[in-house]
């Protein structure tokens, strides 16, 4: 009992000390509706949220002694959170509100990045922080070494490159390119052209691209699962050098391709969409799935 009480007291003191060690800073500035914002932050958290004002508003929780460098013009604004503490990595929690169509660029080391509601161009880079992006940006580019990536919404142009982090996309993209080395990829097919690549990560794709649009999937040792409606309107070319090919969409069977591997080709409907899947040792599964319900009709 005594130990519990002492422990609680110690925890309270530590908590109070940590709170005292952090300082809340706020900044605000006018910014054009399509102004550019660059944010550098190493550790902590970065959240960028759209709002319907031509200004930028920053709330930062920074360690005592750290200086938040924030400044710029109406067309460009820069935030830098590691000024003033060259000998340590400041853990900074940043919450930034920006004009909805602003051009946003964020780079962190371990800080997770979250962006919400943006409609302009968004570039997010992190070594190991998780990235969560929701909204309908014109262009969204994400690069990470180890961070997990979750994107939802309708970015027109989407590019994600990840090393070991998983990539999950839920929504619609007109132009889609997702690649990982060992991370898993889960995505719908883009409405336009799509390219999905992994070296060893498994790939799961739901649905088909639009009429005439190509979808190319390459994985060396990851499995590829494509789930589409029972009677897809698409032409399929599937190759695997060493992996199994399972086709539940038609009666077509894989045949030997060249001196190595197996190839499956068939057309369903008018062959509107063009699907190409290649693996080396990874298996390929073409499955029929019930059509997804349109969330807007719920």
């Amino acid at each position: 009992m005594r130990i519990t009480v002492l422990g609680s007291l110690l925890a309270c003191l530590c908590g109070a000390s940590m709170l005292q060690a952090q300082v809340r800073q706020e900044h605000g500035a006018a910014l054009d509706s399509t102004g550019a914002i660059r944010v550098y932050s190493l550790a902590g958290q970065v959240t960028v949220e759209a709002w319907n004002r031509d200004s930028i508003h920053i709330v930062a929780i920074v360690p005592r002694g750290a200086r938040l460098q924030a400044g710029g013009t109406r067309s460009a604004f820069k935030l830098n959170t590691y000024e003033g503490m060259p000998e340590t990595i400041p853990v900074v929690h940043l919450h930034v509100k920006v004009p909805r169509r602003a051009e946003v660029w964020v780079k962190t080391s371990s800080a997770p990045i979250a962006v919400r509601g943006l409609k302009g161009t968004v570039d997010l880079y992190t070594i190991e922080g998780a990235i969560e992006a929701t909204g309908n940006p014109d262009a969204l580019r994400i690069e990470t070494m180890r961070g997990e990536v979750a994107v939802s919404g309708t970015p027109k142009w989407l590019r994600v490159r990840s090393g070991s982090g998983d990539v999950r996309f839920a929504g619609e993209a007109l132009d889609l390119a997702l690649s990982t080395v060992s991370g898993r990829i889960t995505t719908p097919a883009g409405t336009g052209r799509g390219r999905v690549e992994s070296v060893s990560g498994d790939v799961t794709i739901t649905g088909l691209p639009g009429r005439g649009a190509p979808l190319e999937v390459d994985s060396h040792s990851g499995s590829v699962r494509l789930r589409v409606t029972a009677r897809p309107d698409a032409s399929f070319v599937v190759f695997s050098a060493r992996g199994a090919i399972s086709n539940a969409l038609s009666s077509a069977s894989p045949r030997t391709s060249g001196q190595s591997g197996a190839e499956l080709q068939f057309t369903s409907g008018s062959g509107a969409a063009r699907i190409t899947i290649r693996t080396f040792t990874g298996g390929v599964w073409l499955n029929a799935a019930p059509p997804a319900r349109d969330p807007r009709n719920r």
Partner: protein
Amino acid sequence: MTHHPAEATLHALVDGELSPSAAVTLEAHVAACAECAATVASLERLARMAARAPSEVLPPEASWPAISDAIRTTAQVAMERPVWSRVARLRRSMRTSASRALAAAVVIVLLGTAAGIHALRTSGVEPTPRITTAGERTARDESLALGELLRELEARRPLLAPQTISTVEAQLRAINDAIEATQQALEADPRNPHLAAMLEHSRRSREQFLRTTLSLAAEL
């Protein structure tokens, strides 16, 4: 845009690698800036010349050993450095400097890439080819591109956290294994277009991975 963009950005514009909005912004700058317009025109000329160049043309055979030696020297320099003592120091000082937290993995990248290049040299290309195949040309072009990346990495020499080092090492190994396995399969079945496409994909993945590593490590 009031300042001049970096030349690398102009390269990206000419190569069509920028996002649509970034391209529009940059094109607006180039239209109003004689200096950048001249650079872009020069890069476009270079791209046109490269496109017209016969694909059979390769760097003179005599130059290849020099390139190869340069790459080996770079790797040797990296190996001769007290890598792991540096890593140990980094671990101790991890909390003191973010930029230092990035060093060791670059060494791993250098070693892994050099090993990959060495593997390409030794496994995929004949010592003195008279007639070159598409695969051989690709391997050489890739080696040259990787050499550039090595130099960039050497110049920046940023530091990565130990866990990231492991990730970089494991991923380069996975990509190199994929390239090697696909290359062997293609040698056995050289007319298979799927294998050729997969080899190209794996090579591109390695280059993209190195570029991403460089990009993420820069400016932090």
